[in-house]
């Protein structure tokens, strides 16, 4: 089973840290000495240990009792390994949530059973969906505080069902739980006999994640292997990860931007020749002709070409304290290819709390918008919605080299 990466969205009040602590604790993933440190830090009467303290790693976070940055937590069961992106929930830390979501297959939306769907739930759901997450779990927490009420559970489920059409999730699951008491976390709770689904951990263990093998075949050259010693004098291999789809020996391919056509003569994986390589594999490709190929070049099958353009409409999530400047030259990193780019126009800003678009002249930290950009040479890409491996890029400030924006390309 492949590792499952998920992000937990919500804040401390919703019991987010308690939920993470519970998953780690109940799967025996917390080391006892780390619990010891926690015990000396703080004791709580309603629980032997404060599970929420497990997750906050920085001094400032413990002092302020909030999560500022994304922390990655690891646990595994007999079935699967899990990576949790623990990101802060407040609007002022939206960029951290974007970061966490970008590395997740699933989003767990934490809802306080007493409060139901809030503006924050909507914001987190829409950000998760925008970032390409296809599966959502609504964890309706603190179900103990509403007397394990089936009615409350269904009311919240209906609330979310009524808004889900604006979202791009393939699958949404609803689980009533109490992170504090452990209801429906590892095993089914006897107190929610009306609930037909599986406990949270079981859902996570069995979730199938998006496979990129069935998508269009995409490969970008990451590194050219050209040993200079005599044994491998004529060796010239093109190393990289199969981003999506598959490549086989004998495939007719096109090298972009040169538009050369050639044939794959050999595929190596871990120094062994293989006939077929699939999404996720690190491979070294060899071609029939000796063509000039370098880092960042795109290799695709001749009948399945990506967009090719230097005018791109794209989502941007702004990550920097300095606002976006129209007309300024930024560096754009499209995986292994760096080009220079100008933002020509802010088309519309997305108000993620009410899911409305509005006109905007300024984009600053945590803003999400649709913009038009122009690059100094064509990019070869897909729409992010269609392929989240080739439809994204980051914007870099050319003076201090900070990562200032995340781009998700729209259809061209």
């Amino acid at each position, binding site marked *: *089973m492949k*590792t499952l990466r998920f992000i937990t969205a919500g804040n401390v009040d919703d019991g987010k840290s308690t939920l993470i602590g519970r998953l780690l604790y109940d799967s025996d993933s917390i080391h*006892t000495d780390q619990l010891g440190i926690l015990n000396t830090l703080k004791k709580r009467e309603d629980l032997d240990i404060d599970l929420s303290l497990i997750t906050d790693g920085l001094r400032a976070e413990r002092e302020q009792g909030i999560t500022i940055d994304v922390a990655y937590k690891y646990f595994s069961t007999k079935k*699967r390994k899990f990576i949790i992106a623990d990101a802060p929930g407040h609007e002022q830390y939206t960029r951290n949530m*974007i970061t966490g979501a970008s590395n997740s297959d699933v989003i767990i939306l934490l809802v306080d059973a007493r409060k139901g769907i809030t503006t924050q739930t909507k914001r987190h759901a829409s950000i998760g969906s925008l970032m390409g997450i296809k599966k959502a779990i609504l964890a309706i927490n603190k179900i103990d505080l509403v007397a394990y009420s089936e009615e409350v559970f269904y009311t919240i489920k209906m609330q979310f069902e009524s808004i889900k059409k604006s979202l791009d999730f393939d699958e949404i699951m609803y689980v009533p739980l109490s992170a504090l008491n452990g209801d429906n976390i590892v095993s089914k709770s006897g107190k929610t006999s009306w609930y037909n689904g599986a406990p949270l951990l079981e859902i996570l263990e069995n979730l199938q994640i998006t496979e990129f093998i069935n998508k269009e075949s995409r490969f970008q050259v990451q590194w050219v*292997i*050209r040993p200079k010693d005599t044994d491998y004098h004529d060796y010239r291999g093109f190393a990289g990860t199969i981003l999506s789809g598959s490549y086989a020996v004998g495939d007719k391919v096109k090298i972009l931007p040169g538009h050369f056509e050639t044939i794959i003569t050999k595929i190596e994986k871990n120094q062994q020749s293989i006939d077929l390589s699939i999404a996720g*594999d690190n491979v070294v490709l060899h071609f029939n002709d000796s063509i000039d190929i370098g880092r960042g070049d795109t290799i695709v099958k001749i009948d399945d070409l990506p967009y090719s353009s230097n005018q791109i409409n794209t989502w941007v999530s702004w990550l920097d304290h300095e606002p976006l400047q129209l007309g300024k030259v930024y560096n754009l990193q499209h995986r292994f290819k760096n080009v220079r780019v100008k933002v020509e126009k802010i088309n519309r800003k997305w108000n993620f709390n009410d899911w409305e678009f509005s006109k905007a002249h300024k984009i600053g930290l945590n803003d999400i918008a649709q913009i038009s950009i122009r690059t100094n040479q064509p990019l070869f890409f897909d729409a992010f919605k269609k392929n989240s491996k080739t439809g*994204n890029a980051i914007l870099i400030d050319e003076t201090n080299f900070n990562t200032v924006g*995340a781009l998700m390309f729209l259809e061209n």
Partner: protein
Amino acid sequence: MSKSTNYLDQLENEAIYILRETAAQFEKPALLFSGGKDSIVLVHLALKAFSPGKLPFPLVHIDTGHNFLETIKFRDYLVNQIGERLIIGNVNDSIKKYNLKESPGRFPSRNALQTYCLLDIIHEHEFDACIGGARRDEEKARAKERIFSVRDDFGQWDPKLQRPELWNILNGKVQKGNNVRVFPISNWTELDVWNYIQKNNIELPSLYFSHDRECIVHQDKLVATSDFIVPLPNDKVIIEKVRYRTLGDMTCTAAVPSKASSIQEVINDILKNRISERGETRLDDKISEAAMEDRKRQGYF
């Protein structure tokens, strides 16, 4: 275990991806090699990433002067076997050069002093990226570390000014004088490392497996006797079957009682053990809750 090993392939793919990205984006990278299992795995991954070519970076060992003899021997054996370049920085030289003061006490750690030596080596060789074997599961300050972690010319880590790292697009651009610490096995746990070692049959220093060793018992921890740790009259000295879970300085790394003499037996040990790696074996992380965060802020790995 029903969990198949294809999750190990995922980890390997990710690490190779990061190593190639480092080679491609930086002018002068280096691989920080401590002689421990994590950096041995790193070397193994690097060989896979660039084969049949040579490694596009040298190995750098910051020798604290307090290392186990077995660690140093294994280092030289491995370097000779793979035929790659090794640069050694001696903390003893830095101590003389800067008149550094050793931390007091019977079990002094040279962790803080190591940083001086490392920064000198970085400046001398103009390294712009240093690849390390740190993992996010080791410690909670490390849980917040990026894959490409930008440091200024003092080597300082500022957790509040970290670059956002989206998807697996890695931004290695830095201003002159700054450098980047690269962590290809960030997402690995101790158990993953051992499972990987088993799957690939990677050779390790003998210290990792059960052997007889003379130790003193200090606060329930077993510290090997050596030139640096000489038993005092009141010490309880015992000979135990032990192995090392981490390889640090002889002065501050504890052994764990164990009969595990094969990789599989070590894995069984880890599955049963509920104490963290650093918590069980390091005498220097206990001082404060934020010990690692503070060291990293000052330029530590």
